[in-house]
């Protein structure tokens, strides 16, 4: 309390410039007068009395100084004067300031850009939800790259009723729905959810309410819907009286009970849901009765941990509960894994975080290396300048400045540079944070990757800037504060330079820059080669000259019979189009995360206990393999003769045959899907439909005429003779001649939509690549700067050498050799560092070893060449100098 009062008064004095100096003067005069009188009374002479009084009082200047310090805030005063000085210095050297600030800005921006993505995805997995750190994704079985929804509704209800470690469990299933009954039907990604969905997430509708418990009750349910903010705005004009009105979804009416908040996009990170309907409405929405079956696993489940419960405790409990359920209903759980695994949302296997949680930290590590390099670069600039300021610092120290004062001066200068760099970085980040969205190609997935500079990014930027400032400021500060004052003051400019070029610190910084840039370049090289390998890998089909287009029949009013007939007409019409070689249909397209799975029974194969029989299942039309140019290893493919009336047939891929019928002839074997038995009539070569970089998995192909489902997208695949884009217009005309009202969407060449399959590889390669190039540039500039500076300092020495008969070539070699030795040291250190660092990337690389010789050698040569060029320019300039001019040089 007393300390606060004192601080406030001092702050007030500081701010108003109030000083008690006049008062002190008067007090001291009076004090001296009183003491002199006392001394006179004691019998001293007047002169002696005055002298003794002054001695007793002590040094007046020191007292005034202390009085002044007590009156105001000396540290704040010093800080301000240091800041003023630093500002003057920055303004005086605009070139130096610009280079340092830009370098730091690039280094910081690399970090804050990646951080803005981390913030938008891993840190904020469900925008709008409360306390997402308590939420866990609940998964059955081991984590895979391609998880399928793990729970049935009855299992979820049993778990929710019994769990004591979770305060609640929610379940959802999302897919496309259609908003019908409006002028133009629109596909909207929506979810069927348990009634507690919004309450458990902590999301409060901006209008109306969330679901009531009875609206999600099993076997009952209510035709109600909570609509997304975007749907409310775009389709209903933000109608404030929307609550209670009926809207049509997949041709059934639903009463709007709520509008979700603007930023809420559902509970799967990175995917945008825009409608929410209670689970029991499955029959109306998608025509199934999935909520009634214990053996149909179609729900993703999230749980909110009770306070004080650990993840391990929750996992143990759920495992016990799930085991109990599996024992009571063995039929339904025999062929699926029942071990529970729990994941926090930042690495939830569902949604985009399942991929990003590996990629982003790695990008962040690369960005950190870049920042370190930028710091080394600016530190070497500052160090060069600090040598030029040796005399100034020596004078300051000589005048009585303390070491901390000198260090403070340097730290403030570098803080100023750091914060300027941080500000510039924020401007850059504002732009680059949106860059992640640029990697997402047009696709059927409702991806939402809205990164921007938010509060967390802002704080991170400030923190990173200050950290960078400390790194760059500390070396020159420590060096300068330890100057041997007298010898520096006696030094001639020339002798400064002679000791200078041997500076180990500066050489160390240059070596560090070369080494760090080699690390980044090696990473860039590895990612680029890995991406190229993935692109060159044989996917098992030919993507070039294939055009895709999608339509959806169910919302347009087609039934199973009319839909199948329509598909036939479409194929006939398209096959006849000029420029089309062949045409087919499928319910998925390769490498765009759209392949479905089904629970299959494979004749003659006994699954391991708890082995998942959820197998990739593709529904394709006639001529699918011919159109995609996928090899047929045996048997035949589907034709127009495979109809709903003929014998159900299937084609399996090689991986399927090898896995389930090893050594046997797959032709003639039978597979049961959804109660229907399909006989295998063909074996296709393996094709990669999910990731180019993962080994092919078993796939079964079923003919569209025999397992027709009008509820899924139908994707047209056209093989064209020329550029597929030229056929797009006639394709659209052909479809609209058959049905003028049927919307055609996602009309894109296959190579474009396939980009989704290499999304993370491309992001990594692009970022590592740009970081690598930036790093090389910075290192080259750093090396150039140091060599140029040291040659300038050695001008006199060079003049003497030349006057004594040294040839231009010898001088050139001398200077070049100095730079080259540094480069070589940097390359060696960098190779060791890179060898250690690339081990972290192993899991992300495809077809390239993390110690790939070709990459290391070629990148090293490239860097060496650039470094030599950076040394060549100043060395040649120095070698051409006139010895007479050089000797007169100060």
């Amino acid at each position: 309390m007393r300390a606060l009062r004192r601080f406030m008064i001092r702050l007030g004095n500081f701010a108003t410039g109030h000083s008690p100096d006049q008062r002190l003067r008067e007090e001291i005069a009076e004090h001296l007068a009183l003491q002199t009188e006392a001394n006179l009374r004691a019998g001293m002479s007047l002169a002696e009395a005055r002298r003794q009084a002054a001695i007793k009082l002590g040094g007046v200047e020191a007292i005034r100084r202390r009085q002044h310090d007590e009156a105001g805030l000396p540290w704040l005063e010093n800080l301000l004067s240091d800041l003023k000085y630093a500002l003057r210095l920055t303004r005086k050297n605009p070139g130096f300031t610009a280079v340092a600030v830009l370098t730091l800005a690039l280094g910081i921006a690399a970090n804050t850009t990646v951080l803005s993505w981390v913030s938008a995805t891993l840190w904020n997995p469900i925008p709008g939800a409360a306390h997402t750190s308590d939420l866990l994704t609940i998964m059955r079985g081991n984590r895979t790259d391609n998880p399928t929804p793990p729970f049935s509704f009855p299992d979820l209800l049993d778990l929710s009723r019994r769990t004591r470690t979770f305060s609640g469990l929610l379940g959802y299933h999302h897919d496309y729905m259609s908003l019908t009954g409006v002028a133009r039907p629109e596909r909207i990604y929506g979810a069927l959810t348990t009634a507690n969905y919004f309450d458990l997430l902590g999301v409060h509708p901006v209008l109306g309410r969330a679901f009531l418990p009875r609206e999600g009750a099993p076997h009952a349910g209510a035709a109600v819907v909570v609509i997304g903010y975007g749907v409310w705005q775009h389709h209903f004009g933000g109608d404030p009286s929307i609550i209670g009105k009926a809207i049509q979804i997949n041709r059934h009416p639903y009463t709007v009970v709520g509008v979700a908040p603007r930023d809420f996009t559902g509970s799967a990170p990175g995917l945008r849901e825009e409608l929410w309907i209670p689970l029991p409405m499955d029959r109306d929405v998608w025509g199934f009765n999935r909520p009634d079956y214990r053996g149909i696993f179609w729900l993703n489940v999230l749980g909110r941990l009770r306070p004080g419960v650990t993840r391990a405790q929750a996992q143990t409990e759920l495992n016990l509960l799930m085991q109990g359920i599996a024992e009571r209903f063995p039929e339904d759980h025999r062929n699926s894994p029942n071990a529970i695994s729990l994941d926090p949302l930042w690495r939830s296997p569902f949604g985009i975080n399942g991929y990003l949680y590996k990629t982003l930290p790695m990008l962040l590590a690369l960005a950190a290396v870049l920042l370190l390099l930028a710091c080394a670069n600016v530190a070497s600039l500052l160090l060069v300048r600090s040598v030029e300021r040796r005399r100034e610092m020596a004078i300051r120290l000589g005048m009585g400045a303390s070491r901390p004062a000198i260090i403070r001066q340097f730290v403030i200068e570098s803080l100023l540079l750091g914060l300027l760099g941080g500000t510039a970085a924020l401007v850059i980040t504002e732009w680059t944070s949106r860059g992640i969205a640029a990697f997402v190609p047009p696709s059927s997935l409702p991806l939402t990757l809205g990164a921007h500079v938010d509060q967390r990014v802002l704080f991170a930027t400030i923190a990173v800037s200050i950290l960078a400032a400390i790194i760059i400021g500390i070396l020159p500060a420590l060096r300068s504060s330890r100057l041997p004052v007298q010898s520096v003051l006696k030094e001639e400019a020339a002798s400064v330079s002679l000791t200078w070029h041997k500076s180990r610190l500066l050489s160390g910084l240059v070596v560090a820059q070369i080494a760090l840039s080699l690390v980044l370049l090696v990473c860039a090289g590895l990612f680029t080669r890995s991406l190229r390998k993935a692109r060159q890998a044989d996917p098992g089909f030919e993507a070039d000259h294939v055009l895709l287009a999608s339509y959806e029949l169910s919302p347009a009013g087609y039934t199973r019979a009319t839909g199948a007939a329509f598909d036939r007409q479409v194929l006939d019409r398209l096959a006849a189009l000029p420029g089309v070689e062949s045409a087919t249909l499928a319910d998925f397209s390769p490498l765009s995360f759209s392949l479905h799975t089904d629970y299959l029974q494979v004749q003659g194969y006994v699954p391991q206990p708890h082995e998942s029989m959820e197998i990739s299942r593709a529904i394709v039309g006639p001529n699918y393999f011919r159109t995609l140019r996928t090899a047929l290893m045996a048997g035949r493919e589907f034709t127009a003769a495979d109809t709903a009336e003929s014998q159900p047939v299937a084609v399996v891929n090689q991986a399927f045959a090898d896995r389930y019928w090893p050594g046997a002839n797959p032709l003639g074997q039978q597979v049961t899907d959804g109660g229907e038995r399909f006989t295998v009539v063909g074996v296709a070569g393996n094709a990669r439909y999910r990731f180019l970089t993962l080994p092919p998995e078993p796939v079964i192909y079923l003919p569209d005429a025999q397992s027709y489902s009008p509820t899924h997208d139908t994707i047209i695949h056209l093989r064209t003779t020329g550029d597929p884009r030229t056929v797009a217009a006639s394709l659209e005309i052909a479809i609209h001649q058959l049905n003028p009202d049927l919307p055609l969407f996602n009309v894109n060449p296959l190579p474009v939509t396939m980009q989704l399959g290499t999304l993370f590889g491309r992001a990594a390669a692009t970022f590592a690549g740009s970081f690598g190039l930036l790093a090389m540039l910075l290192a080259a500039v750093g090396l150039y700067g140091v060599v140029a500076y040291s040659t300038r300092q050695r001008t006199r020495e060079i003049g003497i050498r030349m006057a004594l008969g040294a040839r231009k070539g010898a001088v050139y070699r001398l200077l070049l050799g100095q730079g080259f030795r540094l480069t070589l040291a940097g390359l060696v250190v960098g190779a060791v560092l890179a060898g250690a660092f690339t081990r972290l990337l192993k899991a992300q690389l495809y077809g390239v070893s993390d110690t790939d010789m070709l990459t290391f050698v070629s990148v090293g040569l490239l860097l060496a060449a650039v470094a030599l060029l950076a040394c060549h320019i100043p060395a040649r300039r120095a070698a051409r100098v006139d010895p007479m001019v050089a000797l007169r040089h100060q």
Partner: protein
Amino acid sequence: MKQKTDVLSGTLALMVLKTLEVMGPQHGWGIARRIEQISGDLLAVNQGTLYPLLLKLEHEGSIASEWGASDNNRRARFYRLTAAGRKQLQAETRYWELSAAIIARFFTVKAEDLT
């Protein structure tokens, strides 16, 4: 060495407060002389250090000051104890007495007392 001066400057503040309590409002020289009389040579030189200390105590609200007339009718700054200062003095007196008692006991203890 540094610690010793810290202790002394702490005790100096206490001496100032006590002086003002006993003698009522005083100017700087009066306080200095009084302390010198009681504490001997502690403040014999550098009486001037008293003034920054007085300013600090004033900032903390323990004392207040105003201009007045000295004995020979010249202008002088007079310091007096405030209510807060009186309370502070009481608290610190108790603390010092307690510390002094403990240290005194500690110094008088003999080896045989501890077994």
